[in-house]
């Protein structure tokens, strides 16, 4: 562990038991599907069997007539006064344009269905079984159209068009050409022609990856009650209750003041629970019936009707001098957006060369619609696809130059002041420290086992700030109640509470953190973009500072001294000049009501000073010669986290991202037939890693403090999923001698790679 920060913290860096722990190990915690209320109806959604079709007619009359059915809704039930576009805060905290007509059509189709699984109608009934029976009675007439299933097909001349009104945008300019390419952009730095002329060696290769799913264990769900006073109350598992509120306001055309979203406990998200799916349908059904309506997706619906991440087609070309200096780099990347525009290609393009200081570079990015589910964010969206190509090309380069792959990376590594290919310069980052930790790690130092392959790779992901709010109320026993709005997917309540405990010098057990609804806390952006501990933690830090300031002032008034003469350390307020004058925070709290009333602190922040994170992997694999099956024998994840607030949960993020990356590398894929139907939409056939598939996942936390944050925190949640796919591909190449240009590395694909 390297640490550039020797600050002596009392709470940060310890491993307390999470505040919601007892509820979660006893089954008491209420997740979205567990929510119940009097008179609850159950909703189900009818989905398209076709990947591309025009809807001629929908007849719901028989379904409506079924005993126990209370209401049926279709796309015709959307309010029709949309202004066309709206601003929705997305996973990285960027306000993105979201065409609300597209959003509506994705949740209940308009005149076209754009993927198999596209929602068409919703039914509310007394039981989920009756609702399901009713779905079978809805008659939809389709004109089936030719599906467009790959990037290559979509970008081909004369390809069937998904959206007749879609024209390619080029950074604010409308090309006017109707196309399946929604967006094209470019980053340039220096002059790549000159850069390649100066190169002694050049590698060039094309890489393909396919659509994969986040795979959270809890399906999407939501319960809506459209009350008689016109207020809509929604309970759901979401990564962002305010995003749900604002999207509902926009889709249903009612003011945000009329909507209250109560986030329940959430069973995983990884980005996939940033967008909304079933909540507005439940709301429309509730409006029609006057009863609360709950919708829970089935696993098949989660695969076919929520948002996986994009498959991609990426070409990488690198040129380098014989000493290893990279002289030029070119990336051409096209990514699948799914049925509506918005793939993660923008982020992929910003991340592809981020780890390196490259003088001449060009990146072209294309956002392409295809007849597959509309993609959604998935942990460091786009970056693993980019790294799969780039980090394999780096190893190929190392091989050509006969250099150690870590040394080649260190030779070119980005550091503070490096200008990224997309323009901005890096502040203090830890790419170099991550590589050095890898180089010196026992895993890398250990000799490879005979017959095993070893691979390494590194990857980058951003961290965002954006809005977070926090309130703190002091209790008379010296404990504090902390309320915040970031839904807790992986123990963030506790890491946020630790910020407040550190500032006030109290034990973290004396902090009661609660995640509250949208009526009860200030606007808080999504749990995503690696921002929760960073930004909501920052809000807790500020709110605790507010409490601290008021506590000192209160003590000053009790002692009749100037508050400037006092300070508060380790939970004790004391005079700087008079050693007699001191009192604990607890004592002060017990006197609050006699000395001027309760103390509450508050903060709303939109912090700058974000610090991106680098992660690296070392992996040893064995490959069965006969079957092609790859086994992960040893796996190490190294990550710069700035400052590990709760090291156990930081390790947990690193291990979880690694496991998802391993699944992505070896097994996971949307297996589509030629009509665009997913052939493996169950957890049996969509093969996520089980405990038996993985070894222990070793972690090495690197702490290069982020100078932009009071405690040096960087975003931790995402960078760890970036290096696994290329690290494993590099290891398999090392074992087999063949380059892996395609994911997943299934036994068949590994055997074929030798041909």
């Amino acid at each position, binding site marked *: 562990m390297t640490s550039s920060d020797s600050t002596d913290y009392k709470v940060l860096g310890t491993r307390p038991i999470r505040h919601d722990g007892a509820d979660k190990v006893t089954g008491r915690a209420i997740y979205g599907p567990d929510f119940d209320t009097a008179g609850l109806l159950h909703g189900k959604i009818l989905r398209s069997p076709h990947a591309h079709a025009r809807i001629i007619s929908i007849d719901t009359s028989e379904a409506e007539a079924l005993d126990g059915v209370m209401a049926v809704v279709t796309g015709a039930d959307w309010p029709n006064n949309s202004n066309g576009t709206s601003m929705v805060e997305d996973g990285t905290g960027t306000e993105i344009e979201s065409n609300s007509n597209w959003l509506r059509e994705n949740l209940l189709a308009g005149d076209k269905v754009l993927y198999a699984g596209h929602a068409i109608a919703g039914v509310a009934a007394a039981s989920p079984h009756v609702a399901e029976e009713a779905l079978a009675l809805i008659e939809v007439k389709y004109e089936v159209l030719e599906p467009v299933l790959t990037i290559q097909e979509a970008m081909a001349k004369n390809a069937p068009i998904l959206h007749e009104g879609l024209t390619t945008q080029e950074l604010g300019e409308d090309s006017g050409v109707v196309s399946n390419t929604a967006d094209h952009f470019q980053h340039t730095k220096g002059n790549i022609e000159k850069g390649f002329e100066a190169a002694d060696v050049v590698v060039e290769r094309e890489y393909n990856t396919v659509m994969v799913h986040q795979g959270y264990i809890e399906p999407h769900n939501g319960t809506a009650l459209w009350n008689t006073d016109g207020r809509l109350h929604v309970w759901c598992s979401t990564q962002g209750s305010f995003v749900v509120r604002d999207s509902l306001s926009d889709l249903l055309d009612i003011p945000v003041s009329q909507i209250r979203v109560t986030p329940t406990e959430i069973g995983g998200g990884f980005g996939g629970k940033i967008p909304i799916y079933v909540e507005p349908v439940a709301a429309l059904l509730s409006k029609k019936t006057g009863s609360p309506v709950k919708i829970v997706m089935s696993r098949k619906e989660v695969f076919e009707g929520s948002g996986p991440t994009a498959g991609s087609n990426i070409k990488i070309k690198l040129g380098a001098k014989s000493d290893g200096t990279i002289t030029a780099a070119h990336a051409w990347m096209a990514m699948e957006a799914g049925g509506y525009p918005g793939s993660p290609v923008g982020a992929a393009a910003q991340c592809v060369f981020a780890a390196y200081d490259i003088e001449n570079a060009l990146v072209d990015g294309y956002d392409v619609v295809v007849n597959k589910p509309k993609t959604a964010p998935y942990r460091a969206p786009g970056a693993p696809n980019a790294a799969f190509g780039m980090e394999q090309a780096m190893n190929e380069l190392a091989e050509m130059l006969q250099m150690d792959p870590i040394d080649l990376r260190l030779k070119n590594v980005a550091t503070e002041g490096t200008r990224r290919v997309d323009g901005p310069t890096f502040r203090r980052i830890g790419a170099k420290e991550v590589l050095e930790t890898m180089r010196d790690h026992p895993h890398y130092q250990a000799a490879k086992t005979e017959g095993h392959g070893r691979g390494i790779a590194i990857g980058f992901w951003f961290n965002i700030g954006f809005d977070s709010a926090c309130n703190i109320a002091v209790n008379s026993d010296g404990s504090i109640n902390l309320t915040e709005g970031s839904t807790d997917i992986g123990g963030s309540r506790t890491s946020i509470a630790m910020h407040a405990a550190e500032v006030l010098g109290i034990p973290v057990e004396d902090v009661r953190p609660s995640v509250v609804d949208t009526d009860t806390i200030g606007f808080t952006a999504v749990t995503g973009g690696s921002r929760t501990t960073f930004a909501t933690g920052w809000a807790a830090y500020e709110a605790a500072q507010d409490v601290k300031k008021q506590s000192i002032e209160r003590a000053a008034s009790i002692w009749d001294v100037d508050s400037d003469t006092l300070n508060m350390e380790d939970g004790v307020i004391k005079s700087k000049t008079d050693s007699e004058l001191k009192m604990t925070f607890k004592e002060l709290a017990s006197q609050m009501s006699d000395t001027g009333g309760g103390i509450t602190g508050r903060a709303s922040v939109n912090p700058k000073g974000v610090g991106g994170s680098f992660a690296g992997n070392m992996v040893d694999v064995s490959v069965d010669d006969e079957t092609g099956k790859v086994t992960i024998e040893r796996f190490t994840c190294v990550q710069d986290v700035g400052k590990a607030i709760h090291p156990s949960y930081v390790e947990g993020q690193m291990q979880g991202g690694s*496991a998802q990356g391993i699944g992505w590398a070896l097994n996971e894929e949307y297996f589509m037939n030629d009509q665009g139907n997913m052939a493996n939409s169950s957890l049996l056939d969509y093969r996520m890693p089980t405990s*038996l598939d993985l070894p222990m996942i070793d972690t090495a936390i690197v702490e290069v403090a982020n100078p932009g944050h009071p405690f040096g925190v960087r975003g931790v949640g995402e960078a760890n999923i970036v290096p696994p796919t290329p690290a494993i591909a590099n290891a398999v190449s090392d074992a087999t001698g063949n380059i892996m240009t395609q994911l997943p590395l299934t036994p068949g694909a590994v055997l074929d790679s030798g041909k």
Partner: protein
Amino acid sequence: MTTKTHVQTTINGEPVDFLCEPRQSLLECLRDVVGLTGTKEGCNDGNCGACTVKLDGRIVTSCLVLGVEAQGADIETIEGVAEGTNLHPLQLAFLENAALQCGICTPGFIVSAKSLLDQNPNPTEHEIRFWLANNLCRCTGYDKIVRAVQDAAKKMQEAS
């Protein structure tokens, strides 16, 4: 409306009767009829293990058992693992080892792991991984779960 069947069971040591439709799974009955929502649904087809309960001494995925099949059965769910206000050593070990992130898989893991330790108090890492292979966790990468089970096994042996 379908006619309902009267089912008599013992759940977590208490006699529990419920009415269910022939098509309702035991998982649905536990969650929607009896109100024990600690048992979770992740797939409804036997492949995630979130719905794991103990039925007459064997662990089953309750989404693959019909409610009516539970007639006369002795069922143990996550709600019955702690004794009063005392957490089971496995529950404590999950907390101390940070073996849960979102926690949706946790009830299934604890019910499965408990039945493993009941019959094999000192399992190897491989035996733990093998036993838990029908319980999917997408958050943790299993490392801390396996360590929690090892930790609980050790503490239970020390205590006995």
